[in-house]
């Protein structure tokens, strides 16, 4: 990724040429990858030992999961468009794309809430079985990160509209892509394993 003039952070020293904020967000992602990685690898190892979990996985709502996948992928697109707009100095357009990204994140959360409600009503609670414990732990942790991302997008969007710290749109974008990629792992592992 190159640093385009309009998105460069103000007066930041960098011995490597990489902007300090970007370096920071990548290291933050490294720590997040190990957290989710730990959970996901644990789930995979357990699933290998428990092939009967495919029966449980049948009761996830694959349609909702597929829809949410499309929602998140689209939100990553709008996020990239927001960053591109910032790079061209088109802050109003960037603001619109950021709002779109945030809304798509919100749709993801609403669909998730619907899924959880439906599954719990049918008796598939976190204590129903170990598969479900993992399902709720993994998707729950992910949903918390989506929520955090929505908050960050809105805070940075507000700053950007005031003309401040526009370089941070790129950083929240990097984070958002990470949240998207985690879902790309969770969807097949939890929904499609039947």
């Amino acid at each position, binding site marked *: 990724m190159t640093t385009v003039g309009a998105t460069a952070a103000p007066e930041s*020293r*960098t*011995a*490597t040429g*990489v902007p*300090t904020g970007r*370096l*920071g967000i990548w*290291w*933050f992602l*490294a*720590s*997040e*990858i*190990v*957290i*989710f*990685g*730990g*959970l996901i*690898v*644990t789930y995979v190892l*357990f699933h290998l030992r*428990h092939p009967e979990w495919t029966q449980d996985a049948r009761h996830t709502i694959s349609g909702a999961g597929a829809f949410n996948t499309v929602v998140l992928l689209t939100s990553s697109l709008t996020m990239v468009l927001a960053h591109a707009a910032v790079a061209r100095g088109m802050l109003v357009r960037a603001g619109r794309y950021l709002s779109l990204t945030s809304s798509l994140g919100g749709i993801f959360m609403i669909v998730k809430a619907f899924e959880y409600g439906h599954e719990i009503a049918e008796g598939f609670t*976190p*204590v129903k*079985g*170990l598969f479900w*414990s*993992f399902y709720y*732990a993994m998707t729950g*942790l992910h949903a918390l990160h989506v929520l955090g991302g929505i908050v960050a997008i809105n805070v940075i969007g507000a700053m950007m509209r005031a003309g401040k710290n526009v370089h941070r749109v790129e950083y929240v974008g990097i984070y958002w892509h990470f949240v998207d990629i985690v879902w790309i792992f969770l969807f097949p592992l939890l929904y499609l394993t039947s």
Partner: protein
Amino acid sequence: MASSVHSEKQSFLSTYVFSTDHKMISKQYLLTGLFMALFGGLLAYVMRMQLAYPHSPVPGFGSVSPGVYNSLTTMHGTIMIFWVAMPVLLGGFGNFLIPLMIGTRDMAFPRLNMMSYWTFFLSTVVLISSFFVPGGASPVGWTAYPPLSANPTYSGAGLGVPLWILAVALEFVAFLMGGINFIVTGINLRTTGMKLFDLPIMIWMQITASIIFLFSVGPLIAGAVMLLLDRTAGTGFYRPEAGGDPLLFQHLFWFFGHPEVYVILLPGLGIVAEILPVFSRKPIFGYRAIVWSTIVTGILSFVVWAHHQFVSGMDPRLAMPFSITTILISVPVAITIFSFIATLWRGSIEFAPPMMFSLGMLAVFLIGGVTGIINGSAPADIYVHDTYFLVAHFHYALIPPVFFSLFAGLYFWYPKMFGRKMNDLLGHLHFWGTFIFVNVTFLPQFRMGLLGHQRRIADPSTVYSLGDIKDLHILSTIGAVGLLLSQIPFLVNFFGSLFFGKKVDRNPWKSNTLEWTVDSPPPHGNFPGTPIVYRGAYEYSRPDRADDWWPQDLAPDETRAR
């Protein structure tokens, strides 16, 4: 007149409480860590008195039931590792030294730095509060293995364990924030001319330790979430009846737990690496060897973890590979230690307190290291695992990098931090008391372990038949009491010197690194401009120079091309 980032006068709160200045934050971490060290040490006092005289109440505390004893051991270990070693070595020395040694005005993310301290402070409050809830503090060991920790029927239905988990989780978040700051600052904010291989060893150690922590803590965060869910929500991650596996927690815990001891060791070694050259007036021996060894140690630390689990019932085929990696990791650590010893060889040694503690660190750590080889070999470990042999090993391995190094570092950098020197006589008293009594406390424990005395036993009279256990415990307790009393000269010295210590100029030790080029204490903003670095940090006693030292930022009259 040094430059100042803030032109307006700052309030008391923003100068001393919610400061974003790395130097103030480092002192906050340092003070909190030292306070918790006192607390952890007093817990050890109660334990040691109980162990020496199991059927008498402990003076100043009362009688110690097995349940209370379990809480004491749990919290002593937890506090020493997470609330003493990490805040002092990383939060304290790391925060203070990194910007100063690399020649910049503050960390890359000063507000994140401030948040990291206050998150840590919150974690401290949560941890201490767990002593006061019904049921008391967590009794399940700092290792918190399920089923004991996951099942309230076994470990009590009170809030002790959940609060412990929450406190540790918050501490992890605090040090993740701090770690990212350290890594990015060290990589990106180095001043002009400060190439990676001109960095002081301390900085390499701090960055490597932060990277190790960052990559190892994730799976345990996942594991801790699962433990909390098992305990409070009735999930079955660790319950065999539900399809779970208690061994899973052990793997998740030790995957972090072993790299963690290197997170603690490396900054401790870094402190020694800075002090030995100054008080030998010699360059550090094998700078590049130390750097590469440190990186290799960091990498290898991720593949040794199951040596903590040889007797856990895990697949026995794992015993050999993990024994091999464990013995292998002693090689890069040994390279570092031998390099330190070679640094001393034919040096002009000055036995000031920082040097005494550095030398003591090496001597005591040696015993910890070689007993690690014994524990790390599965066939031997089967006999000594979870006995006092192990307890002695890890105290010999941890006390040097945590306590000897922190004392060395405090005596050394106190002048820079506070503008005054600590008293030398009290320093020597402190050193000899600490050095002698550490050995009196822990040497007997090797023998106890070899006799078969298991650890975490509240009433040793149940195992007196193994041998001279009673006498060994009493001897060890005499050592522990002596060790605690030996800290009194330090406390008097540390706080007294703030007011009565001899004032110093910028560089009382004639050291080459950049922190000694600014005022003591350094002003807000550290350096008047952008320092320029011309050489590495260890140019001492060059034959072609009149002075026996050559600061990093001194422009050369003549320079040989690199």
